[in-house]
């Protein structure tokens, strides 16, 4: 019996499609979270280095709070705890379907699970992204800014054209690592009922009892997504090296 449950007949197409749908949700949520946490992380990193004491302290507190508590507990709090603090009307509005119309294109309103998962994951991931971007900004040597100043450049152009590109170059590899974490962390959203890849694998497993296959396919999908991000990173690094070589030649 053990052997049949391990391998057995291949999964029916219908169940593979469930897993593909799960993958689709995982990718969508991860993308949304990656974009949102990068933008927010940027903003917070700038505030963090603003030099205004209160602001710096606030950002540091945010980072410490969200980094040092488990994502699962945060998601439970957002999903099960927060609604009790909101009014009944607000909950009704959030849970009923709306149609979002953007320039004539109608988007369906995401489910409450999807909203909370995106919100919770963004709040968590931002705390990590802030630190990566801050490290990137700190990694740009001071003399770069000073020489630009000596050339008579204004503060904003200095930041935009001198500091930022270099900071991004330093921060990109760890940022890609954070994006991988976002994909993996999105699996925890199954605990709040989001139908993503891990949830789908559990569902297929409980419907077909083909535990091995359900988990194997889901695992493969995760590895695939991570591999794509890794490939993007490698491509980028390769381009950078090529650029550096080209610059070396012209110099």
């Amino acid at each position, binding site marked *: 019996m*053990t052997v049949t*449950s*391990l391998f057995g007949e291949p999964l029916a197409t219908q169940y593979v499609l469930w897993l593909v749908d799960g993958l689709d949700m995982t990718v969508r949520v991860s993308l949304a979270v990656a974009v949102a946490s990068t933008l927010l992380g940027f903003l917070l990193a700038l505030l963090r280095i603003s030099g205004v004491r209160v602001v710096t302290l606030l950002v540091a507190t945010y980072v*410490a*709070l969200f*980094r*040092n*508590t*488990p*994502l*699962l*507990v*945060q998601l*439970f*709090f957002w999903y*099960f*705890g*927060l609604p*009790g*603090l909101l009014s009944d009307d607000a909950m009704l509005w959030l849970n009923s379907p709306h149609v979002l119309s953007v320039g004539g294109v109608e988007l369906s309103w995401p489910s409450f699970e999807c909203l909370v998962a995106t919100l919770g994951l963004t709040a968590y991931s931002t705390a990590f992204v802030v630190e990566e971007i801050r490290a990137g900004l700190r990694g740009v040597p001071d003399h770069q800014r000073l020489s630009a100043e000596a050339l008579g450049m204004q503060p904003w152009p200095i930041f935009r054209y001198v500091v930022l590109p270099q900071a991004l170059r330093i921060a990109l590899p760890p940022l890609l690592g954070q994006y*991988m974490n976002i994909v*993996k*962390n999105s*699996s*925890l959203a*199954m*605990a709040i009922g989001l139908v993503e890849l*891990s949830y789908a*694998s559990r569902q297929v497993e409980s419907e077909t009892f083909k*535990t*091995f296959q359900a*988990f194997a396919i*889901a*695992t493969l999908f*995760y*590895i695939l997504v*991570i*591999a794509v991000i890794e490939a993007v990173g490698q491509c980028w690094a390769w381009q950078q090296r090529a650029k550096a070589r080209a610059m070396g030649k012209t110099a």
Partner: protein
Amino acid sequence: MLGLAAAGESPGDGEDGMNFQIIVDNLPYLLWGAFPEGPLGGAALTLVLSVVSSVAAGALGLLLGIALALATGNVHRLLVLVLGFFRAIPVLMLIFWTYFLLPVALGIDVPGLLSVACALSLIGGAYLAHAVYAGIAGIRRAQWDAGLALGLSRVQVLRYIILPQSLRMMLPSFINQWVSLIKDSSLAYIVGVPELSFVAAQVNSRLMIYPAEIFLFVGAIYFVICSALDVLASLVSRRLA
């Protein structure tokens, strides 16, 4: 004025305010589970689970990192691939694997606590291996050459010259990984290991109407544990520096 005063009285017993009395009532269960009558649980089990997995992850990371630094060619590539697998798979997925499929595949029974510790140490170890490898690679080539010129073997150079220097650089990676490990131990709830998140969910199901209070409190406990580790780390690194 009178109206205000009257309105001011209601929040105390209303549904809107937070009720932290329920935390006080359930504190022992949240902190150490059914112990001593039953098995250890709650925050105490989270600590045990974290310490065991941290030590295992650290040892595994050190071992594999050194292997990565010493191995060449196909062995190196194979190691990178295996480590890549553990870095690419979500902790939750690996817990499913170790809990449900290891016993079927190997014919041995792995208790819940051990399978979670196993998953956490494998993932933590895979991350730390790369940190250790990077730390070793970060030491200048000249140091190796100097050691070898003194007549030391490669292992001796590694043990007495390279590792002492690189470990200091790796400390932040280790601390970071241990903090994630403590947080990830919360995923043990999915296979019924009665650590802090699991007992919190149990208490939440019994009381039903205080999820905000319970999860805030549980978050606070994790925060204290993780922050304590952070503080400890900065103390240690100051001693080392």
